[in-house]
Structures are given as structure tokens and as C-alpha cells.
């Protein structure tokens, strides 16, 4: 029987070589990741595809959505191989999504920009957890030659650039983008989960994740706070409005 952090392949899991708890955690993380990938387009396609400021921006909304749908497809395929059908996620209503960040609707260009800047960046942290993880097909989705991480980096760069541009306009525009940062910053911090999560420890035990929730959150704060200040914006209170600490 392989150890807790050996790397498994599909045939190992199908042959019963993995602990049932491991398989259950794997299925769960695939369902959540699938939900997060398709959750983004569900937030902004209806509103931003027709209402983004420029035609080029609308094309970026379409391209971003295409890439997120493709990421969903890849995680859904891994789940499907493990006997998990996540197709119900495609039609669920936003309020039913696993993470709070995907339960509303994005109705302003400021929110779309900051979503890319802050929330897609949290998504990159979540995906980084799978690099070299103990389930080989999952690791392969985020490792070279897969384009998933590059595509996520593109979403983050686009959101960061648009956020900086809007902040640089000053006046009311700056106030609007600050309000978006205020909202998404704490939402993003909560996405890392509770610092005392027992399940997160089990993910690490089995090599499905590397960092603790709090480690990842601290690294994220260290990355984004300077960026927010460079834009001339105010870093929100990291404890105000938080649901998971």
C-alpha cells in the first residue's frame, strides 16, 4: 500500500490502492474546483459581455470565459474518470456555489477588473496547490505543458492593469474602484478558508495541498497589499467583514 503522500494515478485509485478518505477528498476538491472555474463566467457573462467599455474588452470577457469553461472541462474530466459527475454544477444558481465569491453577480466594470486582479489571483494560489500533488492527473492540469496557469496569469494581469488604470483616473472613478477593492479584498481572504480547518489538514496529509490556509493567505496578502498601494489605493482592513479567520 503506497504511503499517504505517494503519487497516485487513475489506475491506482481504481485498483483500491488509495485510502477511501483520500478518494473522498479528491472527489470533493475536484467538485469545488470545477465550481470555481465555471463560477466566474456565471458572475459576469450576462452583464459584461454586452456592457464592457470597449469592443476589445468584450472580446476579452468572451476569451476569459472560454478559458474558464475549458478549465472546468479539464477538472470535470478528472472527476468523471473517478466516477464523479459534476455536470450539475453547470446549471446551479449562483447562490448555491461552494464559495461566497461566486454567489452574486458582477454588474460593473470596476468589479470585473478587481475580480481579475484579486479573485483570479486567489484562484492561482488554489491551483498552485495542485502542482506536484499526490494525484498525477490533477497535477498534470496545472503543470507544463498545460496552459491553465498561463491563462490564469493572463486574467490576473488584465484585471490588474484595468484596476490600475481606473485608479489612476482619480476622483469619482478612484472612489468606485476603491469600493470594489474593499469588497473583493475581504472576499478573497475568506476564499482561503478557516485557519483552523481540519479538512485542510487532511488535504495536506494526503499531499493534495501543500500550504496551510493561513500560510497561503499570508503570502497572498504580502503579494497584493503592495500592488494596491502602488495603485494609490488604500489596503482594506483585513479583518473587517471577514467570515473565516
Amino acid at each position, binding site marked *: 500500500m503506497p504511503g499517504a503522500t505517494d503519487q497516485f494515478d487513475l489506475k491506482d485509485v481504481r485498483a483500491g490502492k488509495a485510502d477511501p478518505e483520500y478518494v473522498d477528498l479528491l472527489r470533493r476538491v475536484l467538485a469545488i474546483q470545477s465550481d470555481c472555474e465555471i463560477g466566474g463566467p456565471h458572475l459576469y457573462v450576462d452583464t459584461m459581455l454586452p456592457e464592457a467599455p470597449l469592443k476589445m474588452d468584450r472580446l476579452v470577457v*468572451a476569451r476569459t470565459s472560454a478559458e474558464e469553461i475549458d478549465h472546468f*472541462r479539464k477538472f470535470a474530466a478528472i472527476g*468523471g474518470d*473517478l466516477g464523479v*459527475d459534476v*455536470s*450539475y454544477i453547470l446549471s446551479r444558481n449562483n447562490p448555491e456555489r461552494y464559495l461566497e465569491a461566486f454567489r452574486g453577480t458582477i454588474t460593473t466594470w470596476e468589479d470585473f477588473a478587481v475580480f481579475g486582479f484579486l479573485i483570479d489571483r486567489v484562484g492561482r494560489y488554489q491551483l498552485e496547490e495542485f502542482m506536484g500533488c499526490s494525484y498525477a492527473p490533477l497535477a498534470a492540469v496545472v503543470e507544463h505543458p498545460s496552459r491553465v496557469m498561463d491563462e490564469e496569469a493572463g486574467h490576473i494581469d488584465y484585471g490588474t492593469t484595468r484596476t490600475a488604470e481606473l485608479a489612476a483616473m482619480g476622483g469619482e472613478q478612484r472612489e468606485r474602484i476603491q469600493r470594489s477593492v474593499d469588497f473583493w479584498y475581504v472576499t478573497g481572504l475568506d476564499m482561503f478558508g478557516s485557519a483552523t480547518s481540519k479538512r485542510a489538514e487532511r488535504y495536506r496529509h494526503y499531499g493534495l495541498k501543500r500550504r496551510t490556509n493561513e500560510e497561503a493567505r499570508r503570502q497572498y496578502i504580502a503579494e497584493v497589499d503592495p500592488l494596491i498601494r502602488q495603485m494609490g489605493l488604500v489596503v482594506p482592513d483585513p479583518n473587517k467583514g471577514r467570515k473565516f479567520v
Partner: protein
Amino acid sequence: MFDATPIREPLDEFLREVVRALHAAVNRGIQGLRSDPAETDKTLADCKELLDVVMAGHVSEWIATDEGPAKQAYR
């Protein structure tokens, strides 16, 4: 022991085709920005049509399996 879900392959194929069509439309739209604005408007309409289908999530209309979709949902 378990097998892949019946929906795994057809869903993968359907979404792969949608993504391919979306990328093709976006690329045409970007080219149109320089030379043919009407083409960009058309490709944006194409993107909307494709994305509306995926966002509606009517999986049973996209694919057909003996067991039907979403019977083994993991929630």
C-alpha cells in the same frame, strides 16, 4: 472499483467544441477591430450565443447517454 461516468466523454467533447468555437470567434473579432468593425459585432453576437448555451447548463440537451446526465452527482 468504479468506472468513468457515462457523461464524461460526451461532455468533454461538447465543451471542447464550444471552447474551440469561442476562441475562433474571438480571434476573428480581434482581427475585425482593425479592418472590419461589422465582423467584430457579428463575432461578439456569436460569442454571446455560444456562452448563453453553456451558461444555461442544459446538459441533457447537449449530450445523450443511456443513463442520462447528472445521475451520479457528487454534492
